[in-house]
């Protein structure tokens, strides 16, 4: 499965297209071809008029930290006297642009600290861009971190409600799924015991079960998928497939190139906050591996 831009074999940084001026032309276009399309087929709808589901335009994110190596009053006074401020800037992302069409499952690969999680958080609307812009059409469900909002003193059942509401579901929706979640997590009687009595794996299973029992529109997954033992992993993988088939677009961050190849039909490779390559998972994976072997010095953007 390949989408619009990946058909040219040349790796492309997809240019910012002004097809859909951001304002309000967007909702009209997709309505026309609505009913006919089967739900599960994630083949790209090659309709040039359809605006991309997610459009990232020249995105840059810079963190400013005021961390000091020597946090003493003396150094603070000296600095104040010189009129300086101890601000260090970290350029987490620079000049990232890409569009993602409907039906795309985009893998994001890169070394630690490359900016993958920052990109995900920006897509989720958690981190505001320092410059550039992000357009998202649809409701984002994020699996950035498991067990967000859980409270160790409460029972598993109560945490299901809490976690579900944290994910943005309504009370009725969570209640509807509570049994299903409990069954999926396979915790048995532990569901009514406080979370702090769980083993790490059990807590992880419950968190995973809550996270995947939602109705994703655009799904963000950040390496959060290694919960539980081998048996549970299989089950989790099956559930992921199901989730993906109901999502309009997906973003997966993973260090496992194999799972990227398996789950994604497109990929991008980020290194030190820059978009290095966009292409098929195979291309990106190969380039990334080659990069790791050759090492940083001998490998620059021009080599691509």
């Amino acid at each position, binding site marked *: 499965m390949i989408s619009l831009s990946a058909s040219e074999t040349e790796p492309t940084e997809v240019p910012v297209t002004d097809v859909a001026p951001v304002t309000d032309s967007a909702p009209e276009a997709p309505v026309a071809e609505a009913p006919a399309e089967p739900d599960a087929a994630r083949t790209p709808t090659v309709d040039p008029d359809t605006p991309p589901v997610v459009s990232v335009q020249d995105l840059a994110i810079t963190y400013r930290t005021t961390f000091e190596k020597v946090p003493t009053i003396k150094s603070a006074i000296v600095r104040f006297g010189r009129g300086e401020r101890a601000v260090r800037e970290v350029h987490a992302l620079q000049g990232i642009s890409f569009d993602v069409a409907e039906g795309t499952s985009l893998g994001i690969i890169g070394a630690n600290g490359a900016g993958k999680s920052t990109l995900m958080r920006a897509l989720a609307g958690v981190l505001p861009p320092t410059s550039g812009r992000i357009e998202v059409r649809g409701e984002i469900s994020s699996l950035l971190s498991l067990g967000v*909002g859980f409270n160790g003193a409460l029972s598993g059942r109560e945490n299901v409600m809490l976690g579900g509401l944290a994910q943005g579901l*309504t009370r009725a*929706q969570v209640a509807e799924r509570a049994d299903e979640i409990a069954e999926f997590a396979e915790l048995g009687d532990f569901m009514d015991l406080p979370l702090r009595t769980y083993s790490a794996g059990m807590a992880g299973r419950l968190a995973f079960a809550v996270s995947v029992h939602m109705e994703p529109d655009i799904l963000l997954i950040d390496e959060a998928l290694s919960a539980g033992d081998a048996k549970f992993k299989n089950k989790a993988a099956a559930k992921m497939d199901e989730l993906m088939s109901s999502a309009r677009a997906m973003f997966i961050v993973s260090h496992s190139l194999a799972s990227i190849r398996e789950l994604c039909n497109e990929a991008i490779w980020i290194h030190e906050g820059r978009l290095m390559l966009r292409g098929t998972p195979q291309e990106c994976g190969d380039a990334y591996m080659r990069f790791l072997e050759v090492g940083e010095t001998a490998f620059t953007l021009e080599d691509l």
Partner: protein
Amino acid sequence: MPTQDVARRRDPELRVYEPHRAGLPKFGPYFRDLRHRLPFAAEFSRSGIRAAHTQTVFGQLWLVLNPLLMALVYYLLVSIINPSGGGIERLAHIVCGLFVFQLVSGGLQQGSTSVTGGGRLIMNMAFPRLLMPLAAIRTAFFRFLPTVPVFLVIKLFTDEPWGLEMLLGAVFVLLITVFSYGLAAIMATLQVYFRDTSSFLPFFTRIWLYLSPVLWTIDDLGGHGQRFAHLMLVGNPLFSLIGGWTELALLSEVPEPKVWLAATAWTVVAAVAGSLVFMSRERDFAVRL
């Protein structure tokens, strides 16, 4: 906001994320989102209350025990300083004001750390951050509720009159809660930029307690009372808020119009200012945590 029907998938809402450090979000979508997420704030606060005393012997009884012991301590303090001013009347007055003051100080303390303490939630979920101070205030309010019967029981032993006017006290409780919300939002914002805020706060609220008519009454002040009261009415929000509540709940007297006016004005100012300050800064929070 439909979240689950299939129709949604063909008519997706466009969201645009652009650079912004300060500045207010669009009110329409913001408050729609806020309302949609309110159940989470409620559940978050409820679970916090439920979890707080799970490992203790007295459990939820602490919700009543804690303010009661606090009132006892202050009662001892006041009756030692002023031996003639003891008695059950004094205790009822202290309890009446102190419980509601705890609503303010508890809300402030919890609210100030609500954003910085909610790190994982804030880093991983996009939701209107105003939910965090709102949840904190809800917690403070539900900690306050069980103290009302305690106060009423103590009042039973006094000669203070009972009347329908007491029901009007609910208005003041509401005003006090909204007022605390406004301040909590400001404190939460401050705390993000200046992490020492929550450490200063207990001392600040302690001084505020002494400045408010909780441990003393206007009558205690003698000749200067009226001038001082006038000053306080303008300068100290809790003077009118707690004073009004005490008059209604304890003395069954309807406060003067100027008390109502001052209390309402302070509440509106605090709530509006707090919300605006918080909202204009909240998109910066994730970067600062």
